[in-house]
């Protein structure tokens, strides 16, 4: 490979590198923008968990998380990036906790419902058995009645 060809490859590689530096990952170029985007995402996720939490098991933790989110907004507005990052990490972990709590609560509700179904099935079987005894008695009586009216 001659010198000219080597230079050509070098120019291409340099162009790609410069292009990547200029246009690649614009969101990470600005931490404040990234934090802002994260705050919005976390708000949405928190709202979703609020909707899913029918029994209100995560109410206290949601309130605390909302407070941390507000604090992170204030810290971000004051230009304190490091503290904002710390608060957002708390929020992220708190959301993991809330999700797990809500899921546990929902599965528990489902289990309870199935257990109730099981108990009601037992009661229903007993009720059917009582009804069957009565129906057998009635059938016997009606058979006798039919014999009588056909005579």
């Amino acid at each position, binding site marked *: 490979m001659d010198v000219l060809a080597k230079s050509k490859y070098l120019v291409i590689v340099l162009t790609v590198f410069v292009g990547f530096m200029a246009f690649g990952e614009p969101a990470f170029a600005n931490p404040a923008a990234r934090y802002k985007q994260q705050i919005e995402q976390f708000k949405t996720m928190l709202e*979703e968990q609020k*909707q*899913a939490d029918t029994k209100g098991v995560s109410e206290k933790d949601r309130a605390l998380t909302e407070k941390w989110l507000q604090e992170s907004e204030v810290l971000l507005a004051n230009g304190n990036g490091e503290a904002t990052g*710390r608060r957002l*990490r*708390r929020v992220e*972990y*708190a959301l*993991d*906790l809330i*999700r*797990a*709590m*809500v*899921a*546990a609560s*929902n*599965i*528990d509700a*489902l*289990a309870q*419902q*199935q*257990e109730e*179904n*099981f108990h009601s*099935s*037992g009661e*229903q*079987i007993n009720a*059917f*058995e009582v*009804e*069957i005894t009565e*129906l*057998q008695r*009635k*059938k016997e009586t*009606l*058979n006798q*009645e*039919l014999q009588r*009216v*056909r005579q």
Partner: protein
Amino acid sequence: MNLAFTKVVTPFLIFALVAAMGCKPGPESEELLELERMLQDPKALEIRDSPGASRFFQEARQFRRVAREAHDERKDDLSREYAVLGTLRYRTAVAIAMQFEAKQRLDSANVKLEEVNPVLRATNAERNKLVGEVTQLEQQIGASVRARAENERQQADQNKSTFQAANTTSQTSLAQVHDRIREVEAVRAKALEVKADQFAKALFDRADGQLHSARDLANSQPGATDIIMQQVEHAMTMYREAQTSAEPLFKDAERKMQPDNRIAAIRTESQNNFGAPYTITEFNGVRIVMARLFEPQTGNFRFNTESLIDALAKVCQDYGEFTISIEGYTQRKGGATENLATSQLRAHKVRDYLINKGVKSERITTEGFGQDRLRYTDSADNNDRVEIILRHSR
């Protein structure tokens, strides 16, 4: 010498003591103490061993370690921060352990239900059979009572002429009458083969009335053979008419009740009600896809979906010999475990609705598949759906 030594060394000792006191870290923060307390709880070992929770438990321990290190380095704020994160991780581990316990309870309840369902079905089937038999007996008694009353009335009307006829010379012998009655009974049996007592009930009952009347008359007034024969012939004619009327209806009903025809009929009706794209042919039945039926991530029906579910209830009621499997699904939004629970809630919601509409619970089974098996890739909300499989139980 000693005094000079003391004068030189004492300030150094005092300085070293003060420096040592100044370097010693202060008491641990409340957050760190709380984390310590949680991790030292005897239950923490159970949580560590719970499936899925160990990762969070280990993270909580790592945060405790770095929080202690930060405290030793007198970085109290950092120590407190790590302690808060550790506490959150430990509590997440606890919640996941609770999920696991709840899932075990759910599985256990499902197993128990599976065990009790066949008993429930068998008991219910026996009860239904008895209800049918009792109803049939009541109808038979009613018909017999009516026929008896009719016979008595006819007999009263004919008493006068019967007595007169008994005194006249009969052209027909009693033996011939009995032969003819047997022929009529044979025709009656043929009429019953095509369920004339159901499909031509009025005619059949009248024929029965005539036949009973003729029998009674033959016993009470054996001399009135002409009149008896007249009644017998009348009964014969009516039985034949009843048989002729009932035969096409019986064949039609029989044809319609054949499994293949019923399966074809339910497929057509499902397509008419729910649209061809939402109706899929299944072995011995049909699958109805009810897309976009629920609010996202909930078990609540969307607004204005009632008529659709009512249509489903009607199909389920009209085709009572079909089993009903309800499968719940969700879109891929939110956690997989949570979506699994939501999909099961959705299947139960539809089951409860059908039961309220009069569909028998023992025909229905439910299952939730969560966010697996997405059917629609173009519109995520369409996957908030249930799929109902109606299958002939032949």
